[in-house]
C-alpha cells in the first residue's frame, strides 16, 4: 500500500471522530463534568471560568479553581475559539495531530515511508476509549498528549530544536513531563530503532563524536525555551502567581476532587501533621523511576520513554483516563514484545473491570448517594492494578525479548528465570 491509501484511511478515521464530536447525543451526556475524564488541572469548565475571569480583569490565579497554565489563557483569548461547538472540532483536530505524530514515530522506528500497520496505529490512538472520551469531554489532557507525541516524533527524527521546544511547552502544561527529559536527550543522541533484541551499552548513533557536552547543550537549550515560556506566562498572567497555581498544585494537592488516580483519597484521609511528608514521598517516588529505567533501556530510549509514560500514567497526582490511555495506545508501536508479554489477558480483564466499575461507583457515590467513597476508591485501586500490570508486563517483555528462545520455552526445553 502506498501513501495515498494511508491518507485516505486516516482522513476517514478523522471524519468518523468529527462526526462523533458533533452528535447532539454527546452534549446530553454532560461529559465535561465527569471526574474520570477530566481532573481539576485539565477540566474544560474550569478553563472557561478562568478565561471568563481573565476577560473581566479579575486575576484568575488569585484564588478559586483555575489551575491551567497561562498559555491556555493566551491561546483561548486570541487564537482558539471558546464556543463549545468549535471547541469540539478543535479538540478532535488535536487528537488527529496526535495520531499523525504516533504514526510518524512508528515510521521512524521502522525506517519506513509507509507501512501496512499505519492505519491500525492511527485507529489505536483515535478510537481508544481512554483517549476519545476525555477528548469529547474537552479535557485539555488531549493537548498534553498531542504535545508529548509531537516532541517524541521530532526527537525520533533527530531534530533537537523542535523536540525541545515542544517539550518546553509541555513542561508548562504538565510539570511531570520533566521526568521524560532524560530519555528525550538519549533519543536525540541515539536512534529510535528497535534494539531491544540485542541490547548494548548506549551508543550515540546519530553523532558518534557526541559527549556529555552535547547532552548538556540540549538541556541548556531546553532550559532556555522553558525560561522564555515562563516569561510569556508571567506577561500573560501579570505576575508570578501562576507558578503556585499551576506547578505548585501538583506538588501540594490543594484540590481533592476525586479522579481515577491514587493520590486524592490518600490525601483526603491523611492527617494534617503528615501531609507535607507524604507529599514529598509521592513526588520523589516518581523521580526514582527515571534513572533505573533509562539505564536499563539505554539501548532503546524510545522504549524507556514508553515505560516512563506508563509510570506517569499510573502515579500522576491529577490522573484522568487520558494518561494511561496514551501508554496503552503506544503499545501499538512495539509489536516485537507481544509474544513475550507474560499476562496480557489479565491486564485486559483488569482494565475492563476498572473501566466498568469507575463510572458506576462514582455515580453511586456522588449522584445517587447509595454508595460511599470507598466504592469509588476500590475501583481506583483496581484501575491502579490494571495500569501497574500493563506497565510491568511491558517492561518484562522489553527485557525478556533480549533473551529470546520463545519457541524453546514453549516446548519446555528451556526455562528463563530471573536471579
Amino acid at each position, binding site marked *: 500500500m502506498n501513501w495515498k491509501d494511508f491518507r485516505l484511511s486516516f482522513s476517514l478515521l478523522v471524519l468518523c471522530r468529527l462526526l462523533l464530536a458533533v452528535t447532539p447525543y454527546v452534549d446530553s451526556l454532560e461529559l465535561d463534568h465527569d471526574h474520570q475524564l477530566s481532573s481539576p488541572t485539565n477540566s474544560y469548565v474550569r478553563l472557561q*471560568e478562568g478565561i*471568563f475571569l481573565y476577560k473581566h480583569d479579575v486575576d484568575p490565579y488569585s484564588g478559586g479553581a483555575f489551575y491551567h497554565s497561562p498559555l491556555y489563557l493566551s491561546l483561548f483569548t486570541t487564537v482558539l475559539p471558546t464556543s463549545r461547538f468549535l471547541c469540539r472540532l478543535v479538540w478532535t483536530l488535536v487528537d488527529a495531530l496526535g495520531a499523525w505524530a504516533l504514526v510518524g514515530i512508528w515510521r521512524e522506528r521502522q525506517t519506513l515511508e509507509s507501512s501496512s500497520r499505519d492505519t491500525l496505529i492511527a485507529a489505536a490512538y483515535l478510537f481508544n476509549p481512554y483517549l476519545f472520551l476525555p477528548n469529547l469531554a474537552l479535557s485539555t489532557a488531549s493537548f498534553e498528549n498531542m504535545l508529548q507525541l509531537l516532541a517524541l516524533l521530532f526527537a525520533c527524527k533527530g531534530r533537537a530544536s523542535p523536540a525541545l521546544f515542544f517539550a518546553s511547552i509541555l513542561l508548562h502544561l504538565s510539570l511531570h513531563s520533566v521526568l521524560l527529559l532524560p530519555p528525550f536527550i538519549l533519543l536525540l543522541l541515539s536512534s529510535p530503532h528497535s534494539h531491544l533484541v540485542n541490547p548494548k551499552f548506549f551508543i550515540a548513533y546519530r553523532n558518534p563524536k557526541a559527549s556529555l557536552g552535547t547532552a548538556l547543550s540540549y538541556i541548556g537549550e531546553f532550559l532556555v525555551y522553558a525560561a522564555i515560556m515562563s516569561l510569556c506566562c508571567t506577561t500573560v498572567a501579570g505576575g508570578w502567581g501562576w507558578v503556585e497555581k499551576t506547578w505548585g498544585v501538583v506538588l501540594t494537592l490543594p484540590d481533592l476532587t476525586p479522579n481515577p488516580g491514587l493520590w486524592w483519597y490518600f490525601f483526603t484521609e491523611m*492527617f494534617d501533621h503528615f501531609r507535607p511528608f507524604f507529599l514529598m514521598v509521592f513526588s520523589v517516588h516518581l523521580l526514582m523511576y527515571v534513572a533505573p529505567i533509562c539505564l536499563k533501556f539505554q539501548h532503546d530510549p524510545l522504549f524507556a520513554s514508553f515505560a516512563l509514560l506508563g509510570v506517569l500514567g499510573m502515579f500522576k497526582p491529577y490522573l484522568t483516563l487520558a494518561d494511561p490511555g496514551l501508554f496503552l495506545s503506544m503499545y501499538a508501536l512495539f509489536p516485537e514484545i507481544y509474544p513475550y508479554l507474560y499476562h496480557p489477558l489479565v491486564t485486559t480483564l483488569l482494565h475492563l473491570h476498572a473501566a466498568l466499575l469507575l463510572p458506576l461507583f462514582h455515580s453511586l457515590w456522588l449522584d445517587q448517594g447509595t454508595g460511599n467513597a*470507598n466504592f469509588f476508591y476500590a475501583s481506583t*485501586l483496581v484501575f491502579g492494578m490494571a495500569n501497574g500490570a500493563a506497565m510491568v508486563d511491558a517492561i518484562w517483555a522489553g527485557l525478556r525479548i*533480549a533473551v529470546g528462545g520463545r519457541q524453546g520455552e514453549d516446548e519446555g526445553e528451556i526455562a*528463563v528465570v530471573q536471579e
Partner: protein
Amino acid sequence: MTLALKAIPLPLLLYVLGTVASSTPETFHEELTLRPLRDGKVISRFSFSTLLGGAIPRNPDVLDAGNTPQHYSLFPLGLGQVLREYAATELHLSLNSGKWEYDRWGYPDEQEVGTGAQLWAWIGDGGQATVDERWKGLRNALAGLFCASIGSLDDQRTTSPTLAFAPEGDLPAWPLPHHLRHATLPSENVCTENLTPFLKLLPCKGLSGLASLLNPHRLFDADWHGMSVHVSWRARRGVEVRLAFQAVFDPVRMSTDRKRDWSLQSIFDRTIPKACPIAESSRIAVELPKNEAYAVDPRPTSVQDGVAVYDTSQVNDLDVSLRWPLESVFSYPLDHPAEPLSQVSVQRTLKGTSQSRGQLSVSIANSLPSEIQAIYLETMPWHVQFYLHTLKIVVDGQARDDLLSDIAYTPPEPHGRPALLESVLTLPPNSTTHLDMEVMKSFLRYTEHPPDAQRGWDLPPAVLVNFTPGGRRQRLYTRTLLVDLATPDFSMPYNVIIMSCTLIALTFGMVFNLMTRKFVVVRLKKGEKASKEKAD
C-alpha cells in the same frame, strides 16, 4: 445594688447622678415598639441606646501609648473597654434565630435579620497592629463578652464588601482610612447565655424599666428572635451604643381560647414593675390596627398617626393590652393582602441532587411600579465555588444579562477566604428577576469535616441592599442554605494508607526487580546435567 438604691433617698440619688452626668454627659433612652400583624402575630422591638456625649473613638495610632482611664456611669464598661482596646470605630453585632418572613411580617425595624451571628466593624488603620489583628482580637473579646462563638468567624468567614455595608454613623477624619470587616456564622444558636450578658450591658440591668420584660422563657419561645448591638459615632453627638432585641410572638398559639388578644403579661409573662430612674426617656409605642374594632388598655399618653404611645418614665406595674372585643375566635386570613407587606422580596435556593455540583438560584420579586437599583452581595465560603461564567439572568422568561453591572468578584481560596460577589442589580418594575449560577461543591480533607459531617454546612445569607425613596439603605437577608458535601469514610484512614501504599510498593517492587535482576536460561533437557548460560 438595689438595696443601696432604696436606702439612699431619691433626691440625693438624683443629685449625685446629675453631677456625674454633667462632667461627661451620658444619656440613656429606651423604647418598646409593638406591632400586631394581619396573621395574628405581634412584632416586638426593644431599643436601648446609651449615648456617651462628646466622646471620640480611639485613634489606633495611640494604642501603644496606653489607655487613659475612662469613667462611665451609664455606658457599659465591658463593651467600652473592648472598643478602646481594639480601636474599633463602628461595630454591629447581631445574633438571630429563625427565618424572617418578609412577605408576612414586612420589613423589620432592626434590619440585621440574617440567621445566626453576624459581625461587621469599621476599624481604622494605623499603629503597630494591623486591622486584621485587631479584628481577631475584637472577635475574641466579643465572644467572651456575649458567650457566643464569635471567635470562630475567622479567615474562612471574613470578607470586606465595599458597597453593601456603609457606615451608619460618621468615621473620624484620620490620616489612614477605615477598613470594613464582615463575617457571618449562620449555624450559631442563640439562647439564654447570650441574653444574660446583653442585659448586663444596660444601666438598669433587667431589674427596672422596659428591660424587665425580657423574660428568656418567652423570648426564646418566639417564632423569631434576635438581639443586636450597634456602636456608632456621630460627629456632633458622641459614641452611641444601641442594644436592640426583636421578637415575633404568636398570641394565638399561646392563648387558650384561640384569640389574638395580647397583653404584656400574656406575651412576656411579666409586667413593668417600675421605671428605670436613669432613663431620660422611656416609652412604649403600640401600633393600632386599622379598619378593625379594638380596645387598648390602659389609656395611652398620646395617640399619633395610629400609634398609641405610653410614657413609661413613671410607672408602677404597667401592663399594656390590646384586645379585639368583636372577635370571638381568630380566623387566619387565607387571602393575600391587598398590598404586599414588603415590596421587594428575595428567595434563594440551592438546587441539584449531586454532591459534586449544584445550581444556586435566586429570585427577586419587585412589586413596585418603578425600577430599583439594588446591591446584591454574596459571601460564600470556599466549600461552594461559583462558576461565574454560567451566571444567567432571566426576567419573566427573557434573558437580560444587562441588568447586572459593576460586578466585583473576589475568588475564594481553598482552605482559606470565602468568595465575595458584589454587584449592582437593576430590578425592572412589577417583575421577578431570576439569577441562576452553577456551583461546584468542594471535597474536604478528613480533618476539616465537623463531627456531625452528614448534617452539611450552613451557607451565609445573601444580602440585597436597596435604597428606599427616603434615601435610607434597606438590607434584605435571604435565608441560609444547607449544602451537603461528600464525605470520605471516617473509619478508614489507616486502611486507605496501607492499601494505597501496598499497591505503590508492589508496583515499585516489581519494576525494580526487573531493573536489578538478570535473566538466566536454564536448560531442561531430560537426563542431562542442567548447564547455566549467563545471558543478559
